[in-house]
């Protein structure tokens, strides 16, 4: 049996890939480019790791690695050569980074709380913690009830190694949003990291009261009782409770079937817990969501710089993500909005032709009539624009 030190929450939680892993891997091909944004120099590097047969995008700020992310190749680009693929990815990564940087000014000036949050999510995903924190803090200043933002900002504080700030923030967030199960779960997790075990249990229990099918809370409770059992081996009830919550978590995950034989050993339970926790991490959609948020922000504030090809690639990526086992309702909702926005590229093209081409006698009247239809529709659509919910 492990002792308490060996099973710290950080060991269990460590499912996030760090950039350092790629230093030691076999990098077969890479392309990179520097961008100067404000006071900092950023370097985007796209590498093909032949050992893993994966492409990763690495971001450096002033020569320090800040993030490393797996890049999915969309099916339409799979048949192209590796160099072409790497160049295309580099181009898009650079475009997104530059766009996000340019959005800071406009969002800080006239963005809503949720737009600050959207931009913050992109920076958070890119490992740009200071930029993310600034946006989340602005979001909370504008709307203290934005419950998701508490969670996002607290994860920045955790990454920056200031758990007490994460704790203070989440406590305030829970006070304002007491019925938000996600926030209670996040607070419980930070309590656990800060060794405030009693408070952690309280939050997990309350999160479960608010959402009875909250798989992640069942897992966190499994961990809590596993730790309890390790700390107090004489308490046999703790292990029984860990098994109970693990079974609940397993039952909510359709890809897993409950083991036929009885599970009762600490090691067995902890192994299953780790497998399930890893599975939950693999199902994480924060990266694709952050890209969606960036694109929708760009649609509102940076339309002149988005090409139709970029939007098409974004939609293809999202569509393929959904098709690869991530068929989640919120991603479908993003895709719906994405298709809607995509149509504007065509509407604009139609409008531009009808307005500028010199049509002969035969088509002139039809073109004028059609232009009126396009204009009227466009006006209607503009009114709809702020009503989309993501």
């Amino acid at each position: 049996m492990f002792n308490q030190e060996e099973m710290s929450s950080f060991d269990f939680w460590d499912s996030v890939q760090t950039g350092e892993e790629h230093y030691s891997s076999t990098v077969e091909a890479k392309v990179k480019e520097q961008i100067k944004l404000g006071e900092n120099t950023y370097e985007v590097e796209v590498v093909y790791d032949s050992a893993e047969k994966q492409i990763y995008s690495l971001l450096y700020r002033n020569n320090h690695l800040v993030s490393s992310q797996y890049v999915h190749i969309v099916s339409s680009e799979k048949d192209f050569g590796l160099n072409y693929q790497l160049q295309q990815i580099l181009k898009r990564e650079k475009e997104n980074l530059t766009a996000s940087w340019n959005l800071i000014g406009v969002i800080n000036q006239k963005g809503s709380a949720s737009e600050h949050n959207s931009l913050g999510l992109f920076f958070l995903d890119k490992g740009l913690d200071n930029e993310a924190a600034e946006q989340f803090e602005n979001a909370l200043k504008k709307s203290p009830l934005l419950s998701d933002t508490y969670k996002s900002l607290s994860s920045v504080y955790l990454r920056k190694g200031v758990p007490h700030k994460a704790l203070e923030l989440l406590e305030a967030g829970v006070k304002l949003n007491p019925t938000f199960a996600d926030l209670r779960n996040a607070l419980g997790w930070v309590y656990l990291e800060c060794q405030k075990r009693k408070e952690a249990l309280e939050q997990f229990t309350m999160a479960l009261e608010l959402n009875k099918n909250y798989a992640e809370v069942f897992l966190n409770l499994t961990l809590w009782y596993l730790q309890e059992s390790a700390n107090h081996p004489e308490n046999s009830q703790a292990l029984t409770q860990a098994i109970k919550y693990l079974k609940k978590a397993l039952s909510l995950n359709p890809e897993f079937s409950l083991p036929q034989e009885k599970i009762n050993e600490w090691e067995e339970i902890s192994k299953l817990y780790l497998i399930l926790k890893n599975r939950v991490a693999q199902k994480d959609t924060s990266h694709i969501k952050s890209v969606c948020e960036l694109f929708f922000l760009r649609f509102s504030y940076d339309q002149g710089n988005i090409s139709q090809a970029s939007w098409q690639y974004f939609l293809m990526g999202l569509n393929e993500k959904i098709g690869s086992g991530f068929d989640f309702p919120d991603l479908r909702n993003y895709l719906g909005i994405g298709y809607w926005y995509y149509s504007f590229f065509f509407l604009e093209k139609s409008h531009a032709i009808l307005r500028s081409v010199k049509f002969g006698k035969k088509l002139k009247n039809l073109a004028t009539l059609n232009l009126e239809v396009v204009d009227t529709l466009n006006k209607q659509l503009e009114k709809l624009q702020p009503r989309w919910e993501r």
Partner: protein
Amino acid sequence: MIGRNWEILENLKRDLNSNKLSINWDYILEGLEELEKSEDTPEGEFQKACGYFLICGYYWQEAERQFQKALKKNPQLRKAQNNLKNIQEHKSAFKHSFQQIEF
């Protein structure tokens, strides 16, 4: 080419005005591709403009379909409910504009 393009536009418009439940993207995108190959003449450009306008309707249908799929997975998802409501409230206006386009 020009004659074939009028046919493509007619087909796109007819489909949009019918109550087709599924979208055959291959057929639509091939049609659009053909239109884009049109000669650089006022007539060819006019056809492209009409094609671009009509294709919006297909993307809106696809958007509607995605909101419906989201709600099938989670009927309580309020944002998808509202987005679907948005699109359905304006559906008749969209349809009307596609009927108005003339070529």
